[in-house]
């Protein structure tokens, strides 16, 4: 489902974010990419999502190369993935409902489906009481939950999560990881970048990154 072959990413000709990284992640797999800050975790997720291009090497996601795909193909590929960004990337002056609904609206889903699906997913993440609140008015934990809800609302084939529990309390973190675990059990391929191993999911594969290199793949 996701194959990365000898991917290297260099910034400003000298700053190596990734060095010769090769990984293959299969369908319905749950994969943790662990490593300290600056290890290249976010860069790796960005390569998979097509937000960045490798300086060398090859990335294949769902049979497509995000770096080589034209814009419409790349956008189409992205609609098959969900991304929980470290900085959430929510539209602050839109309601929680609109932040989620837009993902389904851009996939041209019928309005009735959009409405019921958004309400359901908001209920899963425990935000149904905040449905019409502006995203900018939500607390950090609520924003994190909303970011996760937006990433899974369209039932993507692949979920990418960059520090999905980085700024929430332990209870919320456990709640969110359980939710991700359930998504994975329903057949969603999950790739989580995290600096700690506190919330590793049962049976998950762990890839360690350090200074842009893979240290071990158990």
């Amino acid at each position, binding site marked *: 489902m996701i194959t990365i072959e000898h991917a290297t990413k260099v910034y400003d000709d000298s700053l190596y974010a990734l060095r010769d990284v090769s990984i293959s992640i299969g369908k319905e797999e749950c994969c943790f990419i662990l490593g300290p800050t600056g290890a290249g975790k976010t860069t790796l997720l960005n390569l998979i999502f097509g937000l960045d291009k490798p300086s060398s090497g090859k990335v294949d996601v769902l049979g497509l190369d995000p770096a080589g795909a034209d814009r419409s193909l790349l956008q189409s590929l*992205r609609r098959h993935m969900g991304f929980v960004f470290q900085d959430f990337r929510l539209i602050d002056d839109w309601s929680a409902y609109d932040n989620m609904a837009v*993902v389904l*609206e851009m996939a041209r889903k019928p309005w009735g489906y959009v409405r019921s699906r958004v309400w359901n997913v908001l209920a899963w993440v425990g935000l149904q009481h905040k449905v019409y609140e502006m995203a900018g008015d939500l607390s950090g934990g609520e924003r994190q939950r909303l970011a996760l809800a*937006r990433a899974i609302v369209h039932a993507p084939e692949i979920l990418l999560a960059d520090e999905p529990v980085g700024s929430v309390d332990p209870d919320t973190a456990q709640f969110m990881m359980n939710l991700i675990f359930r998504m994975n059990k329903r057949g969603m391929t999950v790739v989580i970048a995290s600096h700690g191993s506190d919330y590793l999911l049962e049976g998950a594969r762990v890839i360690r990154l350090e200074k842009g290199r893979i240290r071990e793949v158990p």
Partner: protein
Amino acid sequence: MIHPRYLCKHLARSFLARPYGSLFALLACTLAIAQLAITVYIVDLARQATLLPVSASSMIAYLKDKPPPSVLAGLKDSMGRMEGVSRVEFIPRRAGLERMKQWLGPDNPLVEDLDPEVLPDAFEILLKQEYLIMAPVIAGKIKGFPEIEDVRYNKGLMGRIASSYKGIRSGGILIAALITLSLGLIVFLSIRITLLSRGQEIEILGILGADAAFLYAPYVVEALLLGITGGILGSLAARAAINAVLTHMTLLEGVIGAPNMREMVVVIGFAALCSLAGALIAIKR
């Protein structure tokens, strides 16, 4: 196909984000289009005037010298037999002066002490009603007689407008071009400001996988709405202004009509096209 609900939400957000800006943009569009509608009306009016026949049914043919009665009789007979002429009447210079005194008033200094000998003798030629449209041709033929100095006939108000058609059309095109530029600029700036103020939103939607149509179609719709609403309001305002002028100018009663529906539709369509162009350039930049 983008869902209408999403478009409505987008339009509502745009309006609520800067209500006064949106209203000012609409007002500016309305004023520009009202000017455009009036310009189109005037040019079309002048064009129609060129198609109208002369409004007067008589013409005056002035004689060069003082020909003998036999020549006058021959001329009168020749002109009377021309196609389209119903009657020819000789007006000696003294009778001509009397007519001038009637038109201008007997105390008018122009005619008070005027010697009738300085005036030319003339023929008044009455045209048949169905031949009014042929007046310029008949006048040309009469002018062809060697004894005739000049032929004058009253073209009426529409005739004077018709004779200025080329100038009116050139001026109209220039004004319309300037208004079009202003209209495009208004829409361009309005959409550009909206795009800039919603940069974060566009960036995030792009990252989430929105295609170009989904990202930018709402802005095109917003521009079209601005153009079409401004077009309708502007056309109605222009129509009201023209009607108000016509009501207060009895001179024009029955001569000039109000703008027709075709003109209004053309102006609204043109405004929509300008708005579309303005929006596309704003998006492209």
